[in-house]
């Protein structure tokens, strides 16, 4: 009798044990949704909706342990601005908790720390060995006092491998006119916006309460960067600029509305310290592949820019709003994607009355650390239909990108808060 009881107890435990082994075996594969989450993808790829967060999901990061952190543009109904998502083995996730009572865009993780930004500050949280935040209510404030005047307010962030963090401070202006966005208003000489915005600032990733005086204006003349990433292959910062708006609205005698829809290109820049990309004095014409003088500063649509301004590394359709940049270093996707760039285009509004464009994730091939060959649309139909896209009424707007530990590509949507995961099914 004494011996049979433990044996009887062991039996169900053994059954449960083998059942869970069985469960593990059958569920390890992350299965794409039957409709690939509504996306159009290249052959061999599939997609699933990981979660519906219901919030304006901006940027995203996934820890080596697979914990997903999503930055919301504003706190949700529970007052949380950062969501923590945990995945089941089939890839579907639930929001397990949240913290941070501030809205914003930027979020980035190293194995040791999680970094997140509001529209004027950057915070750092300690991660434990499970990828969990240990101090959700007491983050370290590492950067403070950044300019936020509503327009181009996002403070996107990324880190290099030498302990520096890079923060975008977008220009609080379209083209540094005396009267912002006013028809015919000319540009202010020595544009004062550039003192505190319209560029990328470099700070230390581990020092508290830094502000402009503690940082370095790493690169200037960048109107608004939302997507940026450190290229570990070339050890260089790459950024995506949102080009200026309203050439026709403000200078109807120099541009047609059709030209205004196609100008200027959205540009990728490979930055070195001290670079100047030329905003607001110039814009980039992607069709002529020329830097042009801005009409606010003496341009007429034909005059090329003078001055020593940085050449873009690549150019994309006007006004399509690149909101995330990610260098792919995983091994899940085929060889051609390795060390290339994915770019999430949030989609246009400034092409009206011409059809709107974007709402897709683009792949830009790279070779030896430089864009090489034509970009291609990688994941399309976030809008739900071509008609939705053309009307500027998409169902979803891609905004953030992250690479999972297995090499999956995660995409956020700040329209409905859907989190997507794109996987490659080896054949």
């Amino acid at each position: 009798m004494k011996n049979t009881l433990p044996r009887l107890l062991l039996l169900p435990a053994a059954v449960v044990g083998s059942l869970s082994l069985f469960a593990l075996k059958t569920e390890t594969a992350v299965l794409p949704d039957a409709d690939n989450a509504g996306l159009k993808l290249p052959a061999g790829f599939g997609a699933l909706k990981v979660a519906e967060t219901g919030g304006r999901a901006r940027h995203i990061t996934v820890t080596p342990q697979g914990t997903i952190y999503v930055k919301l543009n504003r706190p949700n109904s529970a007052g949380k601005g950062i969501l923590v998502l945990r995945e089941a083995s089939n890839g579907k996730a639930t929001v397990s908790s949240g913290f941070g009572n501030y809205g914003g865009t930027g979020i980035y993780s190293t194995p040791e720390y999680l970094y997140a930004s509001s529209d004027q500050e950057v915070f750092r949280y300690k991660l434990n060995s499970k990828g969990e935040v240990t101090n959700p209510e007491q983050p370290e404030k590492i950067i403070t006092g950044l300019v936020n005047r509503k327009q181009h307010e996002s403070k996107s962030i990324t880190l290099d491998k030498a302990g520096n963090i890079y923060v975008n401070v977008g220009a609080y202006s379209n083209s540094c006119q005396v009267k912002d966005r006013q028809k015919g208003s000319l540009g202010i000489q020595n544009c004062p916006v550039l003192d505190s915005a319209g560029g990328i600032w470099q700070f230390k990733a581990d020092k508290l309460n830094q502000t402009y005086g503690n940082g370095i204006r790493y690169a200037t003349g960048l109107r608004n960067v939302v997507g940026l990433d450190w290229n570990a292959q070339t050890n260089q910062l790459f950024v995506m600029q949102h080009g200026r708006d309203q050439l026709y609205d403000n200078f109807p005698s120099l541009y047609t509305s059709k030209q205004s829809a196609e100008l200027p290109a959205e540009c990728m820049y490979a930055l070195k310290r001290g670079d100047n990309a030329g905003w607001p004095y110039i814009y980039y014409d992607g069709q002529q592949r020329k830097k042009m003088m801005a009409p606010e500063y003496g341009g007429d649509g034909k005059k090329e820019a003078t001055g020593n301004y940085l050449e873009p590394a690549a150019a994309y359709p006007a006004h399509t709003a690149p909101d995330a940049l990610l260098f792919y270093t995983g091994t899940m996707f085929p060889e051609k994607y390795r060390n290339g760039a994915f770019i999430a285009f949030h989609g246009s509004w400034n092409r009206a009355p011409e059809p709107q464009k974007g709402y897709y994730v683009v792949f830009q091939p790279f070779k030896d650390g430089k864009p090489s060959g034509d970009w291609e649309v990688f994941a399309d139909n976030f809008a739900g239909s071509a008609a939705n896209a053309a009307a500027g009424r998409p169902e979803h707007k891609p905004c953030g990108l992250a690479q999972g530990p297995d090499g999956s590509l995660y995409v956020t949507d700040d329209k409905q808060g859907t989190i997507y995961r794109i996987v490659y099914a080896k054949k």
Partner: protein
Amino acid sequence: MKFLLAALGLLTWSSGTAVAQKKPAPKAKPATATIPAATLTAGKAVYVQNCLTCHQADGGGVDGLNPPLTKTTWVLGDKTRLVKVVLNGLQGEDIDGEPYNNVMPAFDILTDQQIADVLTYVRNSFGNKASAIKAPEVKTIRATNKK
């Protein structure tokens, strides 16, 4: 818009035969019925030239950037506040609880008649229905408008 104008024409011309069958007994005539088509055409021209890029062809605006002109108290409510938005521009105001981050420049270069026309057009397009705004009203508001 052509369709809307055609529909308006139909409404004024044959007030309530085929239309009445579809929509039973709307007692009060829609406000649009009293607004001359010429006013709406003139208003639309001002809209296309000055407003469409930001507020879009359907008046729906752009999420988080440019507010919609549909079903908002700013468009349908107090005329003085609405005229002042056009005269002075707007930034940093929440519209019906939603923040919008873009800048609206001042359109005080438009004439009283152009402002009256475009606001009458906006108040009677995109599903909106509200009374017309007249040029003398704009003139009065402009005269007391503080810069």
